[in-house]
């Protein structure tokens, strides 16, 4: 283990190097470009065994990844925003064919208007594609998560997206600890594909037409396998903790003991909120933080158990559902808690769209709001657009 200084992108590229995948097919896009740019240097210098396919679009990037994965290779790519949107069609195909491809992703808003900065609308827009989603709070976590995600993906045949926040994490230098190459290789093990289109002894038809008579059973089986991801993830995360000393639960609690209210947030904002929690705790206020790290599959029981104990919860959504009902995390959180006997009052704060900065004071204000909700038992405003001009 050694300590290095790396940006989120550098950390993810370094994890990819230590994973040393068979094939990386990728296309540049701000702010994720650096991941493949750095990785192509590793290829050019012979530091990895990877066949790097510099494709002509993200659609072809994921299409080539699908081909390489069906051929039995360990496969990764990287993208962001419009790139993920262009991959959208193939996301479903990769998952439906049970291909454990891993995407190192940087969360960026979707056009229009065009913008290169952070929000979570890209991955939230792909949350039904059958991929595992992990949202990272810092560069260390981005590095660690790619390795854990690959292990989980290959154990379950479910592909994975690991994401960082555009610029806030992707381009910010942080101190992190990296493992030795051999430790990473031992942890992930040799890839043993379940099938290969290069297996000439057992010719098969991959991706056949599947009609009304069988499609539903195959989808049901995929959904069933998806439900096994959480356990596989937890095992991988615990094994990784033994190796690295860093444990990442699917749902992280921060100073929730004795807390009456909590913010439920993902990504870098959750780390920022920890500062606010520390300050408010010093003032004796009963506030805590729950960090949503895994959002697919939904760690339903963990979220219910964790959030169920608060009087009020503020969900922080860095995207909107365009349903005129707030953000996706808000909607799904309310859905998960609907049957709970003990459940908090839940409000939503849609914030930070297009990279709008979120200040410590903004987060402190959210705590003020939910304390009031907890105290009065009444929600004055269900959905707040936080930090946008013209709104309170």
């Amino acid at each position, binding site marked *: 283990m050694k300590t290095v200084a790396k940006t989120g992108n550098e950390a993810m590229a370094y994890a990819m190097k230590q994973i040393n995948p*068979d*094939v990386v*097919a990728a296309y540049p896009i701000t702010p994720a470009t650096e991941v493949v740019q750095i990785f192509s240097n590793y290829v050019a210098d012979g530091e990895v*065994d*990877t*066949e790097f*396919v*510099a*494709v*002509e*679009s993200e*659609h*072809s990037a994921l*299409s*080539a*990844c*699908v*081909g*390489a*994965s*069906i*051929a*039995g*290779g360990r*496969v990764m790519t990287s993208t962001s925003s419009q790139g993920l949107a262009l991959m959208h*069609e*193939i996301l479903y*195909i990769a998952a439906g064919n049970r291909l454990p491809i891993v995407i190192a992703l940087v969360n960026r808003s979707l056009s229009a208007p065009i913008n290169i900065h952070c929000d979570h609308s890209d991955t939230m827009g792909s949350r039904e594609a059958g991929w595992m989603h992990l949202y990272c709070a810092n560069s260390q976590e981005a590095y660690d998560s790619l390795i854990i995600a690959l292990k989980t993906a290959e154990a379950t045949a479910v592909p994975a997206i690991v994401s960082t926040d555009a610029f806030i994490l992707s381009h910010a230098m942080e101190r992190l600890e990296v493992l030795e190459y051999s430790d990473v290789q031992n942890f992930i093990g040799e890839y043993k594909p379940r099938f290969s*289109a*290069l*297996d*000439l002894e057992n*010719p*098969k*038809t*991959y*991706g*056949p*037409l*599947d*009609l009304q008579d*069988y499609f539903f059973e195959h989808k049901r089986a995929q959904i069933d396998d998806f439900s096994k991801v959480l356990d596989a993830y937890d095992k991988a995360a615990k094994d990784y903790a033994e190796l690295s000393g860093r444990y990442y639960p699917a749902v992280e609690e921060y100073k929730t003991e004795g807390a009456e209210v909590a913010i439920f947030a993902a990504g870098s904002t959750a780390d920022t909120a920890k500062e606010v929690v520390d300050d408010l705790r010093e003032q004796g206020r009963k506030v805590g933080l729950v960090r949503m790290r895994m959002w697919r599959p939904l760690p339903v029981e963990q979220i219910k158990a964790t959030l169920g104990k608060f009087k009020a919860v503020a969900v922080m959504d860095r995207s909107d559902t365009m349903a005129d009902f707030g953000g996706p995390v808000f909607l799904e959180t309310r859905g998960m808690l609907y049957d709970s006997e003990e459940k908090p009052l839940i409000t939503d704060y849609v914030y930070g769209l297009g990279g709008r900065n979120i200040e410590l004071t903004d987060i402190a204000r959210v705590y003020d709001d939910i304390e009031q909700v907890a105290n009065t038992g009444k929600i004055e405003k269900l959905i707040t657009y936080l930090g946008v001009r013209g709104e309170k």
Partner: protein
Amino acid sequence: MATLKELSKRKEGLVGGHRACAGCGGSATIRQVLLAAGDKPTVVGIATGCMEVATTIFPYTAWNVNLVHNAFENSAATVSGIEAAYKVLKRKGKIKDDIQFIAFGGDGGTYDIGLQALSGAIERRHKMLYVCYDNEAYMNTGYQRSSATPYCAHTTTSPAGTKIPGKAQWRKDLTEIVIAHDPAYAAQATPGYYMDLIRKVEKALAADGPSFINVLSPCVPGWGYPSDQTVNISKLAVETLFWPLYEWQDGSYKINMKPREPKPLVDFLKLQARFRHLFKPGNEHLVEEFQAKVNRRWEVLLRKEQATSA
């Protein structure tokens, strides 16, 4: 080159029992291409389209080789990935055999929605043969016009109406677009001239780099002709100069079939319902224009051959 006798003894890559129409030109093309690929290990990719849906209905498959279907527009990109994985797994000693790769797509999946993926794959020099089974429209969805649809052809989205007589535009010349990429080999073929197609596939697979064959593959319901006429129409397309058989390699063109006396284009058109409206009174000029354009393009091709011959 394999003889007909040798070919008859080879194991078929695509076998019968699939759901393609009687007289399907597309399945004849694929069958011949896979026969020509021979006994060498071959892995195949295919775009969404007639040939994919007719041959892979779960739990059945008509394919004796490994077949990968991904989506509509990405046959070339998918096989790029397979070929990339093959290279690295071979380097690592995990694959022992020499494997050849063939990507199939219809004209919709190649001329139109898959053009970018094809262009990218050739530019990156993946060693694969891309075969377009060109039946000149979106036949799988019910005969809609594509950029491969010929001038004046009636399709369901370029219908021959009272004001507009079918498709108003000339077809895109995909073979020339591919040649502009400087591939290892490119050709046009059609299954009616099957030994020509076999020879071209052998040549394409032996070439050191990406290769492409555009195979005019008549479609019984889309073109509107009796199902026993596929081979005849395939041949007429060549004999009328509608679909010249030629190949390109190392910068040189070679026309493989020069009819001593080309047949008039109407011989090809009149057998097909998609051109029926051209024979109504008042539409004579359209046939003349069509013929003139075919002649002009043939002359351009002759000049290219002459200019590039050694």
